[in-house]
């Protein structure tokens, strides 16, 4: 019988400091481990604990995986101490991820904010791989300040592509910032798509997800076409431990990506 609680061993190959509180870990699992954009992993440091994270690397790369992690608590403190050569545990992939095939032939609007840019990066790689099957591709990214922009160089490279309509904003600018200043909803006007049929994906801090969702509704995007990447307390990751229930769903097993129409009536979704 399969043991769903068991982690597989992985080696830390590289640690990249993105911001003072965010690091990206390049991991090499010792067994085959593949995932789809939007799925998540339970990442553990032996002797310190386990917590859920969404990978931030291209899901088409099979032998390694990157995970970008903010330091916010006990487990992430231990993760931030990791060095190349250290051994960690990975359990997953868990959850359903984004239904990419439903995006075929559609205009796709991606709204990312803060550390939400990490899972969005995996999604963007997935969308770039299927770019010729999509209609428009729109990306709107926001962050508190330019120093907190994850993968800024990569984003700047994407900005130069002619197959994506992309804008980035910061809540507060600095001397290095030439782009717009304001929350992400302020750069969501002037998108030229048929909103009634467009698919929108939102991933970021709860407050940003809430207002981006309201803005998308205002623009005319259907609730069933707004895909939200929900963050709840998840322990087991497969719908048994009971922590992440949202109405009739478990965030881990039935999500973590939900369309807004599935969850809008349940309390506490933005907390």
């Amino acid at each position, binding site marked *: 019988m399969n043991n769903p609680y068991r982690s597989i061993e992985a080696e830390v190959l590289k640690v990249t400091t993105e911001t003072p509180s965010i690091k990206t870990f390049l991991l090499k699992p010792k067994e085959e481990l593949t995932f789809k954009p939007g799925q998540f992993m339970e990442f553990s440091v032996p002797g310190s604990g386990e917590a859920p994270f969404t990978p931030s690397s291209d899901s088409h790369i099979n032998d390694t995986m990157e995970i970008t992690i903010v330091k916010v608590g006990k487990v992430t403190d231990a993760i931030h101490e990791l060095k190349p050569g250290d051994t960690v545990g990975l359990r997953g992939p868990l959850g359903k991820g984004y239904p990419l095939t439903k995006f075929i032939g559609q205009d796709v609007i991606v709204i990312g904010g803060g550390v939400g840019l990490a899972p969005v990066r995996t999604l963007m790689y997935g969308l770039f791989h299927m770019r010729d099957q999509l209609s428009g591709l729109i990306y709107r990214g926001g962050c508190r300040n330019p120093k907190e922009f994850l993968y800024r160089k990569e984003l700047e490279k994407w900005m130069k592509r002619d197959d994506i309509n992309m804008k980035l904003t910061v809540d507060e600018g600095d001397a290095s910032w030439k782009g717009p200043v304001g929350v992400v909803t302020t750069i969501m006007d002037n998108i030229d798509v048929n909103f009634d049929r467009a698919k929108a994906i939102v991933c970021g801090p709860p407050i940003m997800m809430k207002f981006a969702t309201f803005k998308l509704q205002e623009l005319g995007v259907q609730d069933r076409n707004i895909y939200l990447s929900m963050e709840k307390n998840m*322990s087991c990751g497969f*719908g048994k431990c009971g922590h992440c229930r949202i109405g009739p769903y478990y965030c881990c097993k039935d999500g973590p990506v939900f369309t807004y129409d599935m969850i809008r009536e349940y309390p506490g*979704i933005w907390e």
Partner: protein
Amino acid sequence: MGKAGNIAQSFVCSDCNYLSDTVINICGIMSVFCSIKPLDKHVFHLYFMAMLFIKRGNLDQLLKSLTGDYRVYVPHRMGNSTGYSQLSESDTDYEIGEIRSFDPLKSFYFLGREKVAEDFKPDILRDDKPPCIVGAKACDLKGFRILDFVFIDDEFGDPTYMKAREDGLIISADCTGFNETCFCTAVDINPWPESDFDVNLSPIEDGFIVNTGSDKGRDLIESNKNLFTEATEAHAEAIDQNRKTIKSGVAKSAKELRIPVPDRLSRVIEKQYESNIWKEASEDCVECGACNTICPTCHCFLLYDQKSDSRLARFRIWDSCMIHDFARVAGGENPRDRLWMRLRNRFDKKFTYFPEVLKEIGCTGCGRCISACPGKIDIREVLARLEV
């Protein structure tokens, strides 16, 4: 076995143990169709079993013989109630009948604290004999329906729970009493087992009437034939009488408390979702989590990696949704920051979530949470208050 007069027909789904009164005829073979599962999957065995009788002394012998293959748990009197402990060699002092034990049976299938993974090995760590639970009550069996739904699945099933359920044996029993906190009839359960058992015992003078609920139960009886005799009409009447008395007693007390009828339970919670009742009802809660721990359907747990050395030792520990940080995420957001929200969530899970996803009420009416609560919060009173 048996004469026409006392043949009992148990129409039991061999797959899920659902007891049905619907008999259909397929290809000339009498079969039983389980109405809660799809037709194509379930054409079932039909047991024509004589109603049997076993003397108390013979039951002692039967249970003793089971200790080789099973961890046999029997209820013993402990103060005003009964509690389970493992049957020892010379033990004949157990008590079948009466009411459910104070401890929930989930504890034998899903330990309060159990190591579930070590290092990166795929091994299933717990490897003891399967449990045999003797004297389980109808409310206990209902608890398994909920836990089975949660823990049994192909991809992510809990290996130790699944193994214990698959290999375990359940020898259930009718209730022969009820106490002040019993309200099973209010959640559509009769105080005698009707399904989900291998063998059921209905206590009568000097012994028990025996019914079979599964292949495993039938095999057990077949291989111990000499311990059983045929039951008589008088025996059957005695059980019927007991069942009627207990049921009307429980139903009377449930009615006096004005608990909403089963069909209305999820509707009253929905209707009163924003009501002040939740705030008032949670005033006496001290967040001890006893209601969760003692509940036969509460299944929530936490995976905890032992903080000792660099080895990975992962434990599955019972958790409680009444405790403040249950739903808190890293970074501090908490969708159920207030105690009344957590109390409401507990009711919502039992009376809305499980009926929605499983078509079963997630409460068995066992009343354990009422006895266990130091704040004297009574689930029945809260439900009654919701029905305005």
